[in-house]
């Protein structure tokens, strides 16, 4: 048994402990992803996905390297552990892993460009909400999929002002 002192790094997640708050981030991992997929020097984008964009299976589109596509998605999904803002877009993009086309790859690149501009985003756990209470929120787009009429829902749970778990699911 060895004592590593205060927690600072756990499974690729960086933790910073300060007097009144704790931060949780994956900036190093995000940098690694950008480097790995050749997006280290790209221009930042403001949104993770074009507003109002409707991705579909795009059967006639030009296919891209599916392995590469799945790799990016896999990496991005691990990043979701500290990035609730990406939960929806990554989840949408991962629906097309079976047969990705240029359109889907462009959507993923948009996510990476957005990541470039927001690489320092982190979760902050503060001491302000002293009452330790679990609060949950959820929403759904009610049949948002144009073909299958299935809904995409999302939820987020806070413990006394600190976001602890979230998900976006079709």
């Amino acid at each position, binding site marked *: 048994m060895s004592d590593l002192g205060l927690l600072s790094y756990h*499974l690729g997640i960086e933790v910073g*402990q300060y007097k009144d708050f704790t931060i*949780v981030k994956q900036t190093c991992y995000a940098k690694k992803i950008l480097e790995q997929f050749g997006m280290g020097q790209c221009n930042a984008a403001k949104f993770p996905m074009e507003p109002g964009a409707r991705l579909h299976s795009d059967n006639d589109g030009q296919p891209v390297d599916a392995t590469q596509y799945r790799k990016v998605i896999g990496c991005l999904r691990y990043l979701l552990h500290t990035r609730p803002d990406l939960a929806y877009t990554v989840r949408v993009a991962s629906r097309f892993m079976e047969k990705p086309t240029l359109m889907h790859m462009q959507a993923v690149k948009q996510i990476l460009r957005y990541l470039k501009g927001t690489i320092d985003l982190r979760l902050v*756990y503060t001491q302000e909400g002293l009452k330790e209470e679990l609060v949950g929120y959820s929403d759904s787009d009610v049949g948002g999929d144009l073909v299958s009429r299935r809904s995409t829902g999302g939820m987020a749970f806070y*413990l006394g002002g600190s976001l602890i*778990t979230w998900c976006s699911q079709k």
Partner: protein
Amino acid sequence: MKHISVIELMYYSDGEALLVEMEKPTSYQEATGYVEWTKAMDKEIQSIEKNKTWKLCQLTVGHRPIGLKWVSKLKKYSDGEVVKHKAKLVAKGYVQKKGVDFDEVFAPVARLDTVRLILAMAANRGWQVHHLDVKLAFLRGELEEEVYVKQPEGYEVKGKENHVLRLSKALYGLRRAPRAWNLRLDRCLKKLKFKRCASEQAVYIRGEGKNAIILGVYVDDLIVIGEDSAEIGEFKR
């Protein structure tokens, strides 16, 4: 097993570049001749024997010994300078069959949501989050079932070459190694009066109010939170 080139040395002679590739040995035979590697292997065998992992014995009928294999690793600084030659003895656990050689392999680990929950609780209460790490965790797991392994290549006991080794502790590569370790940790924590959380098996709790300690387990990483740092210090042993 594929060979991975580790060091690529460049020798320049008469302006001509010559690329020499050295590979990490994947067996005892390949390692002989390299002092560093044989030393690393000697060290590994010594530590296993010190740990009382196995005992030499005759094979009982109906059991099949599992082969062992060397996995070697070069630890390097970021500038490429070699720090350490590391040799690890692993069992070829893939020959073990479910239902025959073992039954349960499941070992709980803390979900990342749980880790975040623990962090949020600590932040909210103004507690510190400590991090502990268990060295050689898998080698500490105790095996309940009978497992026999062949003698490691190059370290056969003279005159008893056809004997096998009966394991009492786990080795890397065994299918049940993670679970064996988890059971041992579980027993150990229960002895220390920790209670396992019913809905998240990787969380342990002890005490209430000021003396409370909450523990998250991720294989050999322990995340500890508590108000009283003295209590934590005591737990750390």
